[in-house]
C-alpha cells in the first residue's frame, strides 16, 4: 500500500508539473495538447481513418493553439494503458481513446491523472475526468435498409456482421425494419465474419451471400473487399461503411454511412481550452452530424432517393425514431407498442433480433 502511495504521488507530481504548464496555456503561451489512441492503422480506410480525420480537423480548426499526437495500431489491454499513460506524462490535456476495448485501461489511467481529460469512444464507464461518446449508426442503417428493400430484385439481402454485440445487432434490426417497410417480401441472410477488418474474410462472406442469392450486401466491417466482390458479381448493391468508399460509386456502392467525429472533437477540444469541459455521455446521430450519409448515387431511382432523403430528414430533426412500434421481438413477444419508441438503455444493450429475421444470434 505504501508503495502504491509512492507511485501515485510520483505520477501525480508529474501531472502537477504538467498542470502548471497547462495554466500557462491560458495565457496563450502554451498549446493545448490532444492525444489520440487508435486501434488500427490510420490508413485503414474505415474506423481509424475517420477518427484521424477528426484529429486533422482539430488541427485545422485551432492551428497553432493545439498540438495533436497519436499512436496507431495500439493493442487493447496493457499496451493501450501504457500509451495513454505516456501521453499523459508527456503533457496531454485531453486524450481520445477510440476503441471499445480501451474502456478499462482508460478508467485506470484516468484515476492516476485527475487533471487530464479523457474521452472514450463507444464504452459505458465514466468518471469525473472521463467522458464517453458514440454515434447512432443505426439511424444510417434505417436509410440503408430502405434503399436496400427498394433495390433488391431477389428479395434477399445479405448482411456481413462483425461480432454479435449490441452495436451490430442494433444495426441489423434497424436495417431490417426499414427494408421490410419498403418491401414486405424481403429476407435477411446474415454471415458473421468475427472481425472488424479483414479483407480476405469479408470477401469470402460477401461471395457466400451473393451465391445464396443476395443482390444487396450490407456490411458492418470496414474494408472495401465486399465492394470488390460485388463489382465482380456485377449486379450487387453495396454501401460504404465507416468511410464513404466512393471509389466504388456510383455502383456497386450506392450510398454509405460515414463516421464524422470532427465536430465532436473540435467541440471537446474547445471545451478544454475554455475550461468548460465536464464529464458527459454523448450519443449523437444524423442530426448532430456525427453520422453522415454518403451521397446517394444515380444508380438509385430518383423516387427511392427522395424517400431516403426524407427519411434522413425526419431522423435528423427527431420527428421519427428508427425504432418505432409496433414491433415484436423475433420470438413474437411484444417489443414496442404502437407509436412507442425504444429508450436508449434498451438500444445500448440490444441482444435480440426483431420479428422476421431468421436465424439465431451466435452465443
Amino acid at each position: 500500500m505504501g508503495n502504491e502511495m509512492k507511485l501515485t504521488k510520483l505520477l501525480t507530481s508529474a501531472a502537477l508539473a504538467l498542470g502548471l504548464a497547462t495554466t500557462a496555456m491560458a495565457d496563450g503561451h502554451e498549446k493545448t495538447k490532444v492525444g489520440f489512441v487508435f486501434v488500427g492503422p490510420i490508413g485503414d480506410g474505415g474506423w481509424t481513418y475517420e477518427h484521424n480525420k477528426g484529429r486533422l480537423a482539430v488541427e485545422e480548426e485551432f492551428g497553432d493553439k493545439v498540438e495533436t499526437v497519436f499512436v496507431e495500431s495500439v493493442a487493447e489491454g496493457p499496451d493501450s494503458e501504457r500509451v495513454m499513460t505516456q501521453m499523459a506524462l508527456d503533457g496531454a490535456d485531453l486524450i481520445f481513446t477510440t476503441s471499445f476495448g480501451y474502456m478499462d485501461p482508460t478508467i485506470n489511467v484516468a484515476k492516476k491523472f485527475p487533471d487530464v481529460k479523457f474521452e472514450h469512444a463507444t464504452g459505458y464507464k465514466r468518471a469525473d475526468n472521463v467522458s464517453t461518446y458514440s454515434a447512432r449508426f443505426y439511424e444510417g442503417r434505417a436509410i440503408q435498409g430502405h434503399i436496400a428493400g427498394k433495390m433488391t430484385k431477389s428479395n434477399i439481402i445479405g448482411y456481413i456482421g462483425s461480432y454479435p454485440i449490441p452495436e451490430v445487432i442494433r444495426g441489423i434490426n434497424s436495417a431490417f425494419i426499414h427494408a421490410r417497410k419498403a418491401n414486405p417480401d424481403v429476407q435477411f441472410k446474415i454471415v458473421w465474419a468475427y472481425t472488424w477488418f479483414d479483407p480476405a474474410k469479408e470477401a469470402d462472406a460477401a461471395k457466400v451471400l451473393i451465391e445464396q442469392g443476395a443482390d444487396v450486401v450490407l456490411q458492418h466491417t470496414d474494408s472495401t473487399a465486399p465492394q470488390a466482390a460485388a463489382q465482380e458479381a456485377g449486379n450487387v448493391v453495396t454501401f460504404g461503411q465507416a468511410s464513404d468508399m466512393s471509389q466504388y460509386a456510383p455502383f456497386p456502392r450506392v450510398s454509405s454511412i460515414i463516421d464524422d467525429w470532427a465536430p465532436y472533437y473540435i467541440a471537446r477540444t474547445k471545451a478544454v481550452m475554455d475550461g468548460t469541459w465536464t464529464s458527459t455521455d454523448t450519443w449523437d446521430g444524423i442530426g448532430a452530424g456525427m453520422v453522415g450519409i454518403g451521397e446517394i448515387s444515380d444508380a438509385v431511382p430518383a423516387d427511392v432517393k427522395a424517400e431516403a432523403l426524407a427519411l434522413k430528414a425526419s431522423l435528423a430533426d427527431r420527428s421519427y425514431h428508427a425504432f418505432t412500434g409496433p414491433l415484436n421481438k423475433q420470438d413474437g413477444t411484444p417489443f414496442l407498442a404502437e407509436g412507442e419508441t425504444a429508450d436508449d438503455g434498451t438500444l445500448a444493450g440490444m441482444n435480440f433480433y426483431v420479428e422476421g429475421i431468421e436465424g439465431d444470434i451466435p452465443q
Partner: protein
Amino acid sequence: MIALEKRPQPSRAFSLATPVLAVIATMVFGGLLFAALGKDPLVAIKTIFWDPLFGQYAFFYRPQLLIKGAPLVLIAIGLSLGFKAGIWNIGAEGQYIMGALFGAGVGLAFYPLEAFYVFPLMVLAGALGGWIWAMIPAFLKVKFGTNEILVSLMMVYVAEQFLPSMALGLMKNPEGFGFPGSRNLQQYPSAFNADLIEGSGMHWGVVAAMVAVILAYVLLTKHRLGFAIRVTGEAPRAARFSGVNPTRLVLFCLGMSGLLAGLAGMFEVSGPAGQVTIDFNVGYGFTAIIVAFLGRLHPVGILLAGLLMALTYIGGDIAQSNLGLPAAAIQVFQGMLLFFLLALDVLTNYRLRFGRSEVA
C-alpha cells in the same frame, strides 16, 4: 570477388557477435529509414532505445519493460528447448490463448469467492490449457508422423476462434450490458495477478519467466535430458546411438513449450490485461520465435533478447507519439532486427574470402 567458404567449425565468436552486430546494423539502417521519413535519426534512435530506460519518465517505463518482456521470455524459453532439438512448435500463440482461457475460466468460475487457493488453481489450469494444446500436435506427430510445424500453426487458428466465442458467450461479463469481454480479474482480488510490489511491474509472470530462465539453463547444462536435446539437434544419428528416445523428446519439448506459453497467457489475462476479450492475443507467441533466435536459443540470451524486443515496442510507441513516426516504420525497424540477425548468421558458419575463387 568475394566468396563464402564453409567454416570447418561454426565460429563461436561470430555466434555471440551477430546479435550485437544485428542490433547495430538495425540502428544504422533504421536510422536511414527514419531520416528518409524526415525525422532526425539520432533523436529517433535515442527515443526508442534510451528514453524508456534513462529518460525523464524511466520510472514508469522500466516496470513496463518487465510487463512486456515477461511473456516473451517465458514463451521463448519453452520454444528454445524444442528448437534446439529440431522440434518446431510454431503454435505458441494458440497455446498462449488456451492457457489464458483455462486460467481465466477457473478464476471466473470461482467468482466472487475470495480464497487463497483460487490463484494457484488458475496457474495450474493455465499450464494445463497450454500443455493440452501443444500435446495435440505432439501426439499426432509421434502417432502418425504428422508435421508439427503445420499442426501447431493450425491449432492457433482454432484457438483464435475459441477466444471470441468465450468473450462473447460463456465468459461474457453478465454485468457488461451485453458488450463483449469477461469480468475484469483485476477487480477480483483472489484472482488478480497483481504487482508483488505495487508499481514495480513485478507480477508472478515475471517471477515465472526468471525461474524458467534458470531452470532451462540448469536443464541444458547439467541434466541428461538437456544433453539429449542438444545432441538430437546437432547430430540426430549420434543421438539415436546414445539411447535418446525421440518420442519422449517430442512429447517433452512440445509439452513443455505449450505449458510455458499457457502460463504466459494465464499470467497476462489475470494481471496486465485483466480480461478475456476478443482481441486478447497480441502476437506474443509469434514474436517469441524471434526472441528465441535473437537470444541464440540460450536461456540468458533469450532473457536479454526479450527485454530488447520489449524495449523496441515501448520505445516505438513513444517515437510514434512524440516524433510522429508511423507504426509501419516501427514494424519495419523491428523486422530489420531479425533480417540482419539471419543475414549475419551466415558468418557463423561461413567465412568471407576475398580474391578470385578457384574453380574446383
